[in-house]
């Protein structure tokens, strides 16, 4: 190896490596350890400095030590170098080290390939639409880098634009094949990038309800799910999305002790069913939200094991670790448990001993004065409606007797306070009752015809069991703040408490923009990320039934890919000979191909006579034929028109059959 070959790449080439890599790594910086990002930057600067002085920035030993230190650091930080965390961190670190080692084309190409791998690695982390757009930009930069390091002069500034344009064209040419693969590549169960989930940060509702749980949710804009109704949209105030149901109260929190055993749901339905589909964000919990009473009972999902409890909770065996979409037919009007069994009645009346004496006394008074359970419910609602109760997300702290404090002292709270104390009152008065949590309402997106349900739509309400009516939904919050149910949480809150972010985003002029953006995201989720086995089969079946099984997909994919590649090849390479129109050029091009086959290739800028001289020099045995053909060609192409001449040239070229090796008599 010569000294020149051992010198690192020149600064311009190095920039073509470093900048695309930087673009790829930029989104990683939020979750990479800071030392990796910093050392990457350090390596890049060292590499640039070395490139400017045409010297290796670090010796072999130092480089090896730095690499080993990095590996050790990753192992300490991430507990290993395998898997999405440690593996990607190590690659990111090593891509920096590689910037110090750019001597050979192999090094440079390898560096960019690492960049490609890191690019794909992003999708393990997030698959959102803005991210995908950014990744396309980074892919463009990487492709431009590949182009730049293959050309001699990547220094000139106008080359940057030229390389980027060429890279864009290359990516566009790849697009048809990518689309074909996306549509036809047989899908596996679940998305391809599904990895064992790290961490179990849960969002949304939880398996118990204690003060503060929901208020935290109520301040969040995080998406819970989107729902799309076929046909008429239900009224917002009727949209109760059912989630966890709580039976047990310990004086502080409401919860369900264990999950109830799977048992048939006993219910009667009325009226017309509605159809809706619901796309749920990953919340790493087991609940699936329901509107109305689904039919059939229990509903089922194609690729998940689910079950339904008698109190109408729909659960999956595995927590929802990725976006999940399901379609249901459901009856908004139904009667649940027309007859209450004894176990459930006891459970629905159970209260801890000797707490909240004032509430118990009030309930006892109601019981004594009222003729029916329904009258007691009316009493309680009248209390909330007529006394000075306030809806607020920042209630004052409650003492040990929470229900008493709330009902008689502070009288400030939100849905979980109202629902919790209402159920307490009911049970104290002997009316079976339970707490239901979930979401209420949502934002209707007219652009996409669907409902957006967010964290702030989380809600808690109650069900009381009334003779002849079964479990009946009672929403005490609606009695205090009817606007909560009619127009959402923001409308119900006092002016000073509205979450700033939400208000800022809700400016009238921004609303269509925000909703439009949500439609885009929804489409992306539905059609790109949510394009799973099921959807693929359904879409392909609609196109052609034989396409829907895997044999059809694979053969169509193969044929389609061949067609796409061949078409592109024809379009791109067909453009090569620009003067194929005149016969002289065609014949001469054929002559050049024949010579190229024996190793004498014409350079594009080589004039015919120069080429002929060179060829004759290499193969004296062919000199006469070469000179003749060249002379004929030049006269035809550049001379004044002469009749009959093209045929002569054509014949001469046809008869020109150079052997790969000169005849033995001439060989030296």
């Amino acid at each position, binding site marked *: 190896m010569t000294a020149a070959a051992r010198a690192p790449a020149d600064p311009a080439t190095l920039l073509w490596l470093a900048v695309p890599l930087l673009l790829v790594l930029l989104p990683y910086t939020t979750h990479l350890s800071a030392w990796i990002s910093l050392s990457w930057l350090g390596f890049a600067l060292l590499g640039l400095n070395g490139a400017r002085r045409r010297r290796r920035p670090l010796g072999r030993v130092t480089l090896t030590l730095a690499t080993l230190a990095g590996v050790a650091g990753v192992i300490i930080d991430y507990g290993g170098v395998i898997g999405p965390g440690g593996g990607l961190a190590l690659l990111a670190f090593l891509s920096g080290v590689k910037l110090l080692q750019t001597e050979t084309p192999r090094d440079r190409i390898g560096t960019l390939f690492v960049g490609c791998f890191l690019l794909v690695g992003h999708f393990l982390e997030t698959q959102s639409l803005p991210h995908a757009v950014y990744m396309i930009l980074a892919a463009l930069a990487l492709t431009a880098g590949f182009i730049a390091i293959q050309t001699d002069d990547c220094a*000139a500034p*106008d080359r940057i634009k030229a390389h980027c344009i060429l890279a864009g064209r290359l990516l566009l040419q790849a697009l048809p094949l990518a689309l074909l693969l996306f549509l036809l590549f047989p899908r596996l169960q679940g998305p391809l990038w599904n990895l064992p989930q790290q961490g179990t940060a849960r969002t949304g509702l939880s398996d118990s309800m204690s003060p503060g749980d929901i208020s935290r949710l109520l301040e969040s804009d995080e998406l819970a799910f989107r729902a799309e109704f076929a046909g008429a949209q239900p009224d917002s105030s009727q949209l109760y999305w059912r989630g966890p149901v709580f039976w047990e109260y310990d004086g502080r929190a409401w919860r369900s002790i264990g999950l109830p055993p799977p048992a048939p749901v006993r219910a009667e339905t009325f009226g017309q069913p509605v159809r809706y589909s619901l796309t749920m964000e990953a919340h790493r919990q087991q609940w699936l939200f329901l509107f109305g009473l689904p039919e059939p009972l229990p509903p089922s999902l194609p690729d998940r094991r689910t079950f339904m409890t008698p109190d109408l909770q729909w659960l999956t065996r595995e927590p929802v670790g990725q976006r999940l979409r399901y379609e249901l037919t459901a009856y908004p009007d139904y009667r649940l448990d027309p007859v209450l069994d004894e176990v459930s009645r006891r459970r629905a009346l159970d209260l801890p001993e000797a707490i909240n004496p004032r509430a118990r006394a009030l309930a006892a008074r109601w019981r004594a004065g009222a003729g029916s359970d329904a009258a007691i419910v009316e009493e309680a609602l009248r209390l909330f409606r007529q006394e000075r109760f306030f809806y607020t997300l920042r209630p004052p702290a409650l003492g040990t007797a929470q229900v008493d404090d709330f009902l008689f002292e502070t009288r400030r709270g939100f849905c979980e306070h109202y629902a919790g104390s209402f159920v307490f009152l009911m049970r104290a008065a002997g009316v079976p009752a339970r707490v239901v949590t979930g979401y209420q309402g949502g934002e209707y997106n007219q652009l996409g015809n669907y409902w957006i349900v967010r964290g702030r739509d989380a809600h808690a309400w109650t069900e009381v069991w009334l003779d002849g009516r079964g479990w009946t939904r009672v929403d005490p919050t609606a009695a205090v703040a009817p606007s909560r149910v009619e127009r959402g949480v923001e409308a119900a809150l006092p002016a000073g408490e509205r979450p700033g972010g939400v208000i800022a985003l809700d400016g009238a002029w921004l609303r269509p923009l925000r909703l439009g953006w949500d439609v885009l995201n929804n489409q992306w989720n539905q059609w790109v990320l949510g394009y799973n086995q099921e959807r693929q089969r359904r879409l392909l079946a609609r196109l052609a039934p034989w396409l829907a099984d895997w044999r059809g997909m694979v053969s169509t994919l193969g044929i389609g890919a061949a067609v796409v590649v061949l078409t592109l090849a024809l379009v791109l390479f067909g453009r090569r000979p*620009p*003067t194929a129109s*005149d016969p002289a*050029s065609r014949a001469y091009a054929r002559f050049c191909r024949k010579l190229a086959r024996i190793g004498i290739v014409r350079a*594009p*800028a*080589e*004039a*015919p*006579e*120069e080429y002929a001289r060179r060829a004759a020099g290499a193969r004296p045995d062919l000199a006469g034929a070469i000179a003749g053909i060249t002379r004929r060609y*030049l*006269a035809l*192409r*550049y*001379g*004044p028109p002469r009749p009959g001449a093209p045929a002569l040239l054509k014949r001469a070229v046809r008869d020109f059959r150079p052997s790969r090796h000169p005849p033995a008599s001439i060989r030296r």
Partner: protein
Amino acid sequence: MNPALHRALDQINGVLLGKETQVRLSLACLLARGHLLIEDTPGVGKTTLAHALAQTLGMDFHRIQFTSDLLPADILGAAIYDRDSGGFTFHPGPIFAQVILADEINRASPKAQSALLEAMEEGQVSIEGETRPLPTPFFVIATQNPGDQAGAFPLPESQLDRFLFRVRLGYPDPAAERALLKGEDRRELLAGLRGVLTPVEFMAAQRAAREVHVADALLDYLQALIGASRSDPRFATGLSPRAGLGLLRAAQAWAYLAGRDYAQPEDLRAVLPAVVRHRLFPAVGLAQADDDWAARILLDIAIP
């Protein structure tokens, strides 16, 4: 090939030894009705070449030695009071000849230079309000010492553009040098030269060269070259339309000298260095590697 031109080439090559290419280029330049700029260090035979050309083509020949105190009137001539006739008589300057050797043109002041260059462009001179035509054919063969020598006024680019070719002679190779050292005195040789052609014959040759067939395919190549000179960022400015036309005429002349009735890419490529050498300059910040730096870039353009 025109036999008379062949003989002319032979005769000049007999005086200027070992410079066949340059001699051929010079003759092609004159055939294409262009003016010739010869640049080199003193003593390599610039004057000999100019002189031999003029003698061989049977044209009358004037030599103007450009110096820093040369005035336009010294070139063009002046009206001088004549006591006998009592009026002003015009005394024509040395420019009134068919071949002008403007020796060391970059030694003169810009004023004197421009007097010559205007005559070159117009084919006539205006003196004291009277326009006087110059003889035909009219050639200027200018010689120039390389600009970095002391006391020189390098020609500006606009004036360089008026010369069709810039030719560099260079030192003779050892064999030619040996022949030169052993041979007769050059001045005597020059004096002994006879015209091989008459000016009328030469003008006919010029017309014939102009008739050389130019195919569209050749124009494609020529335009590719011109386009490249204008779009390549390494050049400060591209080739002017005048340069492009000159390139075409020169290629035709070259083809005519080769005895062909059509021009082909090789002809363009042969004259290209002499045409672009004094017309293309490196963009700001780029160093010019050598004389034929620009030609090498253009010769790398693919032939359509």
